[in-house]
């Protein structure tokens, strides 16, 4: 069970959070301009990395804020947390 450091509240038990999948997938500004394939790319395609993964988490039973997490899926270590809108830490790529 993870211990997640919410950027707004501090360390909390994983049971207070919900995971929101891969981070940094931006909703297209002009969906109508996209082909079916391009739209499907946004809608369905997600990475499932063994290793360092960027994820969205929501402190759903706390401050209800969304934020980003850098997690190594091979050992579940959370390497970094940062707020929405912030750039991912450059040392993880």
């Amino acid at each position, binding site marked *: *069970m993870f211990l997640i450091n919410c950027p707004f509240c501090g360390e909390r038990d994983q049971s207070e959070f919900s995971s929101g999948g891969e981070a940094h997938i931006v909703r297209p500004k002009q969906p*109508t301009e996209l082909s079916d394939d391009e739209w499907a790319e946004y809608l369905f395609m997600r990475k499932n990395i063994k290793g360092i993964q960027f994820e969205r988490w*929501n402190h759903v039973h706390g401050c209800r804020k*969304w934020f980003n997490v850098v997690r190594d899926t091979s050992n*579940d270590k959370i390497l970094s947390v940062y707020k*929405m809108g912030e750039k991912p830490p450059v040392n993880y790529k």
Partner: protein
Amino acid sequence: MPNYRIHKTEYIDETKRVSFKYDGKTYFGYEGDTLASALLANGIHLVGRSFKYHRPRGIVSCGAEEPNAICQIGSKKDLTEPNVRATELELYEGLEASSQNCWPNVKFDIGGINNFISPLIPAGFYYKTFMWPKSFWKKVYEPLIRLSAGLGKSPTEPDPDIYDHKHVHYDVLVIGGGVSGIIAAKMAAKNNLKTLLVDDKKILGGSTIYQNNESIKIDDKLSSEWLKNEIQEIKKLSNLTIKTRTSIAAYHGYNFLLAKENLTDHLPEEKKKNKIRQRLWKIRAKKVVIATGSIERPLVFNNNDRPGILLSNSINKYLDYYGVTCGENIILFTNNDSAYETSISLHKKGIKNIIVDLRKSASSKLIKQAESLGIKIYFNHVVTNTFGYRKINSLEIMKLSEDGNTTIGDKIKLSCDCLGMSGGWTPMVHMHTQSGGKLDFRDEDQVFLPKENSEDKISVGSCNGDFDLENIIDKTVNKINKFLDIDNQDYQDTNIICSKENDKRNIWLLPNKIPLGKTKCFIDFQNDSTAKDIKLALKEGFRSIEHVKRYTTTGMATDQGKLSNMHALGIIADTAGVKMGTLGTTTFRPPFTPLTFGTLVGRNVGKFFEVVRKTSMHEWHVENNAEFENVGQWKRPWYYPKNGENMHDAVQRESKAARDSAGILDASTLGKIDIQGTDASEFLNRVYTNAWSKLAIGKCRYGLMLNEDGMVYDDGVTTRISENHYLMTTTTGGAANVLSKLEDYLQTEWPELDVYLTSVTDHYSTASICGPNSKKILNKLFPNLDLSDENFPHMSFKEEKLENINCRIMRISFTGEQSYEINIESKYGHSLWKMCIEAGKEFNLTPYGTETMHLLRAEKGFIIVGQDTDGTMTPSDLQMDWIVSKKKYDFIGKRSLYRSDTIREDRKQLVGLLTDDPKEILEEGAQIVSDIKTKPIDMLGHVTSSYFSPNLNKSIALAVVRSGKTMKGQKLIIPMENKNINVTVSDTIFLDKENKRLNA
């Protein structure tokens, strides 16, 4: 009665005699005994029958690894517990235990016949034998297996005991209170770290606490005496918490561990009452020290499973801790030095014993000590067979060949009444691997060891493969200093004297002149699998340890192979000719020992099982005999039966009253989200399919919300309260998810929008009054409110006071009738409801529940998201194209509405169905077809909603049907178990297509 208690120890209180029943017979033991030690003191070894062959089985060990002495405790329907290990169960006055695996009784039983037909029960027996005929499984095979196999009995009534959960945080958690755990805990706590030490036994000290050999000393004292001092010391430390009778059940990531504390299992019945039985500790520790020790291995030879054959070290513990000898003429069979400690201990108490040692020769302090005591030792010998049916009475040994692959020379027959075996020691790496740790293999003594120690966990003592006392203490001290980054000098000058083992010889499957197929060399005692089974599995092509394990069921019993896994691996490695370290191990899964469901569930039973949400009108519904329906966590009135009505009759009455005069519904559970901010209108434009910018203040609008994939997600009416203030309603079940979804978009995609969302579901209570007389009732409640259609038309909103309390009134309708929803602060909800009922009396205002609501809306063809939709329906599939804005550039899900798949004409689409026989009510979920002759039958769709409408006096249904939009008037068939029902596709609106009733 025989008495095998031969001397006093400080752990057995002979002043406190305890009576207990085992298999219906009364025996006596003492406070401090386990059930196993008390049985052995009474000379009882035979405690059950083996799982497959029903061979007599005896107590093998003295701890959690026990495979045979598995008991059923108690016989009450609500208080009986299966799978309890007699070796762990502390004796208490009034204990009633029975052997679990021996129907009809332990001494003679039907299953014993299996022993003689055992050639017919090979590996994979269950897979091969009980596969066919299939019809036999339920009625013949399963009851037979269950009856004759020791699966124990579950209680059949609710557990009356109380269980508890506790969350704790520590700097350091130490698992295991043996010598290394005690040292680690002391070092941590003395260095100002908040420390928790847990041990599954009643007292601390592990196996050192009863150690009494003169050649093992610390600071010139017996190691047990030295350790007792240490225990006294640590009990004084203020920041150390010690929990005995507490075992770690699971070690999860991020140092989150679950522990079970036994609080009353050792108490007499009358003292257990009204106390918490077991407590589940949920532990977060910054650092974890694993000091779980090791367990002795059995040896694999022919007939190694007779009662009276125990692990050698267990014989030692029964003797020196419990004062009980397991026999009077004991043979110890070993491949290492530890059996010599047992031998010397037995010798000291005057118990005759001899040693059979696999090793060609060996020399160490212990061996010299045994030799000098005149104990007979057969080096380079192996036990080849044992005899005695209900208990061992003799055995045969033979000399080993140079390479150890075969036996040579003559058989020597030796008589005995007990055999101790020691195949070396297996470090308990369960905790390490459960936490994600990897293992290394050490060839020298064939053990798996923790591979790495991380910043937040470390293994010390014999679970880390350090076996002699000097090694254990020195390494523990050094490692803990480093691990905790401290400089503790307490053990700097500790002087340790011990015996060092110099010689090793390991043979996983001991050689025998008899062909393997004719032997019974047990590996897994509890699941009855033998070396032959493993070899057969390999012959049949199984290679992976995980497959062999499942095929032979080795290691799959309640003891999870604590005694058997290593031998299974060893034999596979030897047979396949590979190095054991390359095979890997099976996965060690939690729990380490079985947990009761009660412990896992804790207090969350009965009314605490799940959170229940009640509206402020709930008490009124209860007083008026409502039947309730669970909608999410909400209790909603389902229908209000009068004078013994059934649901059908009540719903017919309620729905007729609502259309003929007036009905009232508690609509408080609908999700309510308060939306404010200068961009609120723009926000609604983006989340709903229709346009919101032009909605006038004081008006309401129905909205449909999609997922980004274009499928209908939720619906509801939203009211514009002021320029930048809206009140959104959602479905009852969808409220929390809708809020989360909206927050997601707001925070992550559109942070530039000035919008604030607040859930106000619980803040307002809602009474919804509908029907032709609803306006008259409203007029009585709000005499100053102009209710004319001009001033207060359908889909509009007014604020008005009821007495002094502000109400928000929406004229909106989910029934097709003229209808008003009155919202009031929840604390006034109950009063509002009662005032409505009072005002409605002269108009037969009838309270109705969710069932009538569903019927009334179905008559109008209004969908219920989640009933008529299932996450695969677009607005167009629901024939609701009218609500999708063509003008808006974008909204959630818009782009998906013209993907190649969503524009297919032959998608399942919502239609109405009318049965040819108007009295016939369809079953919701029933399949719909057009042709029942062509096989396989092509399924076109299914019924989503179905009712008998009293207002139309006929059956109506909604359904989703492939290409349904084009099928109006077409005949379809609903095949049921015993008949086919003919239906005609109709419009989805069955009543008042012109919406005249809204303004009637």
